[in-house]
């Protein structure tokens, strides 16, 4: 299967501190990769580099054949809106917009807002009845589902999750993970998800363990 992500000797340093030591990683199209590790192990740094939110200080990083290190600021912005959907632990929804408008905003930056499509995306994540609610009127699980709808609205080939269930209770976590699996099975996008939670990691196809900026262990959970 073709690789969606390929890194070679990928490093990221902040001054003297090396947050990510040379990393070779290959993620095939459609794979759900989970990244585990302690705080400061470099997993979020890796995720930011994969999402084009940060630039490497060494090595190469290719996502769908595009060398991210060679892109300009606006080129990285284009890459993010065309290829990537990102889900955060803290949800990061715009508080003065409704759930529907939050999803439509992602469409606005990508191309043209389409209310029907945004409504459908929210219905897919089970929030068809919460379209007009603002983030403050939604539970944590519901907010995270809005984030998922926002992340998938532009049909990205890569979904990045930075501890997306970190703030959710067990029931909501299960709901979000089931939803992600369902959407992944339907849309066949790849997922790279950072988590602390062993149970959450078990939803993926493969887990890599990081420590002190290095990939220390890898385990395949199920065949891709």
């Amino acid at each position, binding site marked *: 299967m073709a690789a969606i992500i390929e890194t070679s000797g990928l490093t990221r340093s902040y001054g003297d501190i090396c947050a990510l030591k040379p990393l070779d990683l290959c993620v095939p199209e459609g794979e759900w990769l989970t990244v585990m590790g302690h705080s400061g192990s470099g997993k979020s740094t890796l995720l930011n580099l994969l999402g084009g939110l940060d630039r490497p200080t060494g090595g190469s990083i290719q996502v769908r054949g595009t060398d991210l290190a060679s892109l300009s600021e606006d080129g990285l912005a*284009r890459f993010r809106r065309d290829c990537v959907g990102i889900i955060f632990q803290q949800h990061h929804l715009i508080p003065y917009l409704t759930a529907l408008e939050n999803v439509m905003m992602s469409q606005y930056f990508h191309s043209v807002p389409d209310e029907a499509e945004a409504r459908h995306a929210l219905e897919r994540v089970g929030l068809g009845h919460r379209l007009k609610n603002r983030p403050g009127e939604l539970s944590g699980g519901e907010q995270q589902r809005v984030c998922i709808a926002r992340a998938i609205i532009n049909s990205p080939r890569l979904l990045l999750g930075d501890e997306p269930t970190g703030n959710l209770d067990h029931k909501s976590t299960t709901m979000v993970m089931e939803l992600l699996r369902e959407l992944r099975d339907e849309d066949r996008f790849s997922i790279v998800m950072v988590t602390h939670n062993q149970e959450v990691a078990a939803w993926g196809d493969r887990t890599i363990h990081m420590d002190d900026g290095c990939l220390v262990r890898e385990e395949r959970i199920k065949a891709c």
Partner: protein
Amino acid sequence: MLIRILKSSFLKRPKPVLLVLLSIVMGSAVATAFLGISGELSHKMALELRSYGANIVLEPAAGEAGALKSDDLPKIKTIFWKHNIVGFAPYLFGQVDFASAAGRQRAVLAGTWFGRPLQVPGEPDSIQGVKVTAPWWELDGRWPETPDEAVIGAALAKRLKLAPGSDIVATAAGKERRFRIVGVASTGGFEEEQLFAPLAEVQALLNKPGQLSRVLVSALTVPMDDFGRKDPSRMTREEYEKWYCTAYVTSVAKGVEEAMSGSRAKPIWQIASAEGALLKKLESLMLLLTGLALFSAACAVSSSLMAAMAKRSPEIALMKTMGADRLQIAAIFLGETLVISVIGGLFGYLAGDRLAVVISRTVFNSTVTSPLWLFPTAIGAALVVALAGSAAPLKRALAIEPVRVLKG
């Protein structure tokens, strides 16, 4: 979607929006008020400056000695710039022998109008004469009211030991005329050596009926600029029309000259230049104050937006994460700025218009109507304030790094 974002942004964040709006309204209002009254202020100041004295002198053209005619005087109030003519005073000068109780002396007798009603068909009645053109004369006594009354210059009065109530006899060409002194004039100039009597009496005494030596004209003019200083004889037709239709002292003088046959009109440059320089400084001061008001408003807008931007940095970081490029982010924030500045400009114009009325009434005791061009100017000023004020916050917004802001 942009409209939805802007609408929601305004409705859900009323406090910072109101702060920015208030700054823009204030800047735009002060600019509107200052610019609104600057025209009125210049006009009032120009009127006040007319107390400097006449700024145009009419004399017989070369080769036409003593040829100015009294009959032409009313024509001065019919020229293109007739509304700018504040007043004029005709003079006929002659060397005569004066005799008083203190002795005899040869000096200048000036025939003039003191405050003569002038009626010109189709024009409002006016008073013309020395009272109008030389309001700065200090008069001990009163102005003459009958043909045998006169005003004497302070220096001549001292030499001839004359005071209000004294009589003086003027002799010329074998004719005598007795005048009663009703006022002693102190001017600080050559007028203090002269006797001023009614024009018709002096014309009769000097045997020069209907003749004038000089006419002093006091006119409202605009400050001279490079164009005004150009030689009219070298101007193109369009330039000449523009020059003729601008109230430069030279073009008003030209109009007066055309009205008085055989005359040559010259600006009295020490008066005209001083007035022009003062009016120019006044205009510059008003523009400077307007600029300062706008600058202060822009600073207030900038600091309000900076504070708002700090609060909104997660939002901006999120937009960047979703793939918004710099242009899209700038469009959102400049769109907000544009809407606020148009509203601010509108309210600023209305507030500034009222402020101009209050200032005009309080300071000049007159009413002022803001010209129509002030409306787009107010909107423009609001836009300038908003854009200048949002430059630094926008730069900061575009420099936000999502990784740092959304961490954790």
